[in-house]
């Protein structure tokens, strides 16, 4: 209930006029009876999850529980793995993205992704950010300049790199690289941002910066984040889903799942008894 009052403060300050109250938030993603196999291996079993806009949804669970697979299914990145087979539906804004008619390129311009290991291109910082807009046909230098600045500001890294936009992104530290990757993702102006363990390769201070950034970004984006780190899920998410062996064990408001988990397995996991 603390959550609601925080949201009310945002509304009162006029910072987030789109969202009036928790009840009116629209669903961005809704997976229904989603099953996935890697060859013979049944990696996701009957996943039913509904995710709301302008929220941070965390997915936690031990290694190999299917949480990364699930988030990669949300932008169909999982198809890059040969011999993947899916069944069921994932509705993104009420359209089934697993339908063959859904253009995967179109989906991925609305759903950006930040990966586990910072993966900037071996290009200049500017070209990294401008990559997305350019592949979607924006050539105007002035527009590109504006997008680059806006995205870098959005990822809270503008002040650190504004004087060296033409330098190779590989010269930055790991934490800066990851924020460049977030900026690169913002440059395509997505609706949802998927984050696959975005801080697992970062030091604590860089992790903190990324976490703060996630809090700011959720005002304008819906964020789904996979994390290994339960404290992180507790700190930054509104809702948490606990995955185990390819199944959703529990999906609840974060403060609920961490204070009074319903399932014994959830309780064991968050209290550190396994995983």
């Amino acid at each position, binding site marked *: 209930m603390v959550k609601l009052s925080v949201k009310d403060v945002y509304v009162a300050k006029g910072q987030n006029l789109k969202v009036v109250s928790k009840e009116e938030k629209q669903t961005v993603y809704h997976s229904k009876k989603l099953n996935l196999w890697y060859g013979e291996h049944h990696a996701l079993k009957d996943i039913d999850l509904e995710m709301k806009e302008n929220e941070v949804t965390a997915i936690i669970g031990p290694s190999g529980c299917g949480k990364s697979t699930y988030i990669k299914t949300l*932008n169909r990145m999982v198809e890059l793995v040969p011999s993947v087979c899916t069944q069921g539906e994932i509705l993104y804004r009420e359209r089934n993205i697993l339908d063959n008619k859904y253009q995967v390129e179109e989906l*991925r311009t609305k759903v950006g992704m930040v990966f586990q290991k910072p993966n900037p*291109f*071996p290009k200049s910082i500017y070209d990294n950010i401008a*990559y997305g807009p350019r592949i979607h046909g924006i050539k105007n230098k002035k527009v590109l300049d504006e997008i680059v600045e806006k995205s870098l500001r959005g990822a809270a890294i503008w002040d650190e790199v504004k004087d060296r936009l033409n330098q190779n992104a590989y010269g930055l530290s790991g934490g800066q690289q990851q924020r460049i*990757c977030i900026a690169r993702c913002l440059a395509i102006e997505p609706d949802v941002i998927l984050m696959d363990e975005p801080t697992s390769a970062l030091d604590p201070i860089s992790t903190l910066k990324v976490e703060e950034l996630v809090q700011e970004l959720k005002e304008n984006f819906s964020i789904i984040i996979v994390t290994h780190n339960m404290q992180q899920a507790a700190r930054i998410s509104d809702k948490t889903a606990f995955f185990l062996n390819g199944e959703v064990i529990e999906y609840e408001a974060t403060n609920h799942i961490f204070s009074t988990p319903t399932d014994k397995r959830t309780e064991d996991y968050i209290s550190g008894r396994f995983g």
Partner: protein
Amino acid sequence: MVKYVDHVQVVKRMNGRLVVNKMFKIVFLLATLFALAALGVLVYRMFDQGWGYLSADFITNFASRFPEKAGIKAALIGSMWLMVVVAPISLLLGVGTAIYLEEYAKQNRLNDFIRMNISNLAGVPSIVFGLLGLTIFVRSLALGKSVLAAGLTMSLLILPVIIVAAQEAIRAVPKELREASYGMGATKWQTILKVVLPSAVPGILTGSILALSRAVGETAPLVVLGIPVIVHFLPNGILSEFTALPMQIFDWAKRPQEEFQYVAAAGILVLMTFLVILNSIAVFIRNKFQNRY
């Protein structure tokens, strides 16, 4: 408590181990020195025999019955013409095939079979490619003993090497970079063009230039194709007859007069210079565009 490592014994055996250690260093050093010595003798003989015949006239004269008038102009220009045909054909086909096999082809038995056989093709003797070229390009397609016929044959010969080199360069591009590109809604072709190829270019070019220099030096396929050696004109197009450096050298070397042995050595010097230039370009490209992942 039982001790398995007896330190007194370890110290006793220490000397023996160190001797073996040193011995192998010497063995490997000798192997390297042997190769260096062979190279040294080769270079010495070439300079010793050929240097005297190497002159501006040698570069600008056509072939001749008289050793002192013999020149390498037709062969040198002919080899350059050969490169003009071989380089674009083998690069386009080779890199194209590598992109298909690495980026598009699915993992299945047929494609594995194709991949394996391309590597095997790289080991097929060059004379077999010569016979293939003679049958298909010279005779069936009636291209004659032209630059084009020889160029196509040489392209086929070095194609497997280029494909394998390009495949390795493409495979070395981290998959995270591809994922980043796909993740922003880029199509496969945009990803290949803007992410994969720029990162793979140094590897592709180094491998390809080494393959091209092999095409410059190959003789057997040209012999089989029947490329002439006494040529007193320069090619005026890709359908023109021509001769090439290794053919010319081969012809000089098999002549009975002793002077022609020296002419052949001078020819080898020209060929070696040609190859060293090509290889230097490869090294330059590798250093200049070195990747940092």
